[in-house]
């Protein structure tokens, strides 16, 4: 009996989920690759050549990458003091509550959060009003509908996401390690450098990776905070489908966006694999 029950047939359990992923994710992806390679005269890279020779598209790609990288870097830097504070300065019992305080807005609509920043950053928004109240002078902020506003909006999101993943890594550090190091005379800075930072790294990197993915594909913050004049690639994709409806161009842009994610993610993935290998040795 024990022998036969050890072999559970996985397929009845796995098939529904797998089928959904194959039909609505894998096949569409393959289709998209084919579509991006299809041109009027057969197969070829013409769509990609056209993309890279269209200035407003390459500029949009450049903006997408700059925006995602800046927001990810800023967000991931902010995540360290936040996660560090929650894990090492807060009583164990209260930690989840402090984490929830940072993460709570995370669970609400992305669009709504971007919109709420309009109220604060706009030229007659809360900040402008506050400055006028104090100085008595009316100011034109000029922050809303700029790249900087987009970066700020996305960086805020990244900091929440990275705090979450970094928290997971830091909270599982064995406190005995830190006590031992301290008993042997290690200074706080050295404890951070040699114990906390290396052990928190995987969580941090996971957060950076996920942040980048969200940022590079986002349309809401660039539209609501960055404005429509200097669009990023995701905004252009949105407008193609509801406007010109050039499907092979949409597929080409999608593939380029996917390649961007893969290329920027590759160093992180390789790092993860090397690390796993090193740990298993």
């Amino acid at each position: 009996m024990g022998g036969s029950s050890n072999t559970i047939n996985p397929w009845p359990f796995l098939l529904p989920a797998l089928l959904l992923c194959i039909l609505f994710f894998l096949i569409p992806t393959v289709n998209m690759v084919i579509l991006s390679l299809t041109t009027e005269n057969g197969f070829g890279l013409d769509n990609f050549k056209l993309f890279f020779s269209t200035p407003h598209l390459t500029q949009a790609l450049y903006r997408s990458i700059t925006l995602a990288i800046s927001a990810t870097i800023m967000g991931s830097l902010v995540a360290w003091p936040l996660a560090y504070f929650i894990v090492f300065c807060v009583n164990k019992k209260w930690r989840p509550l402090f984490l929830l305080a940072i993460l709570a807005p995370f669970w609400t609509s992305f669009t709504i959060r971007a919109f709420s920043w309009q109220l604060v950053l706009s030229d007659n928004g809360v900040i402008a009003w506050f400055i006028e109240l104090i100085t008595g002078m009316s100011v034109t902020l000029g922050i809303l509908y700029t790249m900087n506003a987009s970066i700020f909006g996305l960086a805020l999101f990244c900091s929440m996401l990275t705090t979450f993943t970094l928290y997971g890594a830091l909270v599982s550090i064995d406190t005995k390690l830190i006590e031992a190091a301290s008993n042997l005379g290690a200074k706080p800075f050295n404890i951070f450098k040699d114990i906390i930072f290396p052990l928190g790294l995987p969580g941090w990197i996971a957060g950076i990776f996920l942040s980048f993915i969200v940022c590079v594909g986002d349309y809401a913050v660039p539209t609501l905070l960055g404005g429509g004049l200097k669009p990023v690639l995701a905004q252009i994709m949105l407008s193609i489908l509801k406007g010109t409806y050039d499907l092979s161009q949409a597929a080409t842009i999608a593939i380029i966006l996917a390649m961007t994610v893969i290329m920027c993610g590759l160093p992180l993935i390789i790092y993860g694999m090397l690390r796993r290998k090193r740990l298993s040795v």
Partner: protein
Amino acid sequence: MNGLIVNKFMLLILTAFFCLSLIVIYLPILVMVVFSFNSGKYQTLPFREPTFEWYVSLIADNSFINSFFTSLMMASLASIFATILGFLAAYAFSKAKVPAHALLFGIVVCPLVIPMILIGIGMRLQIVSIGIEPALWLVLLGQTLYVLPLAVINLKNRIDKIPKSMEEAAISLGSTRIKSIILILAPICAPSIFATLLLTFTFSFDEFVIAYFLTNFEVTLPIRIWTSLVTGFEPKINAVGTAVFIFSLTLGLIAQFILLFKQTDLDKNKA
């Protein structure tokens, strides 16, 4: 232990930084809530007379109410589908010998590490090339796909911690595999299943881009809000935002609370 790595000065700075972050995170939301009770068409301070005008006009606006119910239905069905499919898949990945385990697991959780807009556009291009009209049932499948990785990961974490012997005991006493899953495994996982339902519901409820690409005329709440935001300002959008914020926040917080507290309680009891 804490004293070993954080001195008084550092503690002060970190606490200040944390409080500042909270202010930055909550300030715009607070402003939105305040504006939703502010009379006057323009969103400028100082605060005028308090009013419920925007909430009243929101309830009277059929387009918002209808889109809310559409979203409610989509999110309910998507979260139920994703949780069921996710539970089954998590069980297989956790307890059965799956051939090409890493590859198949990768395929199932991949939608999580792909920008959502690519999932949406991929499905749109696919249905166009095989000649299916955009419709709500496609949105439902698309959103189920999008939240499925969350369900699989969450539930696999839980099922991994349950020893196989529990089920084996039931089976050697004459139960069937299906019966033991329904009567033993599922009840043990109940808090996680409930949290997964809430979590996937919240994500699907707020999802915009897949719905936007896969429908032509039916409108979910995020699409309705988006249209309102990009085509011209309606003052009641503050009221909508506040309502959606409170709605999603409540569900999300309950889910997060269960995942963070309840599970550790269970693990403690076991140990």
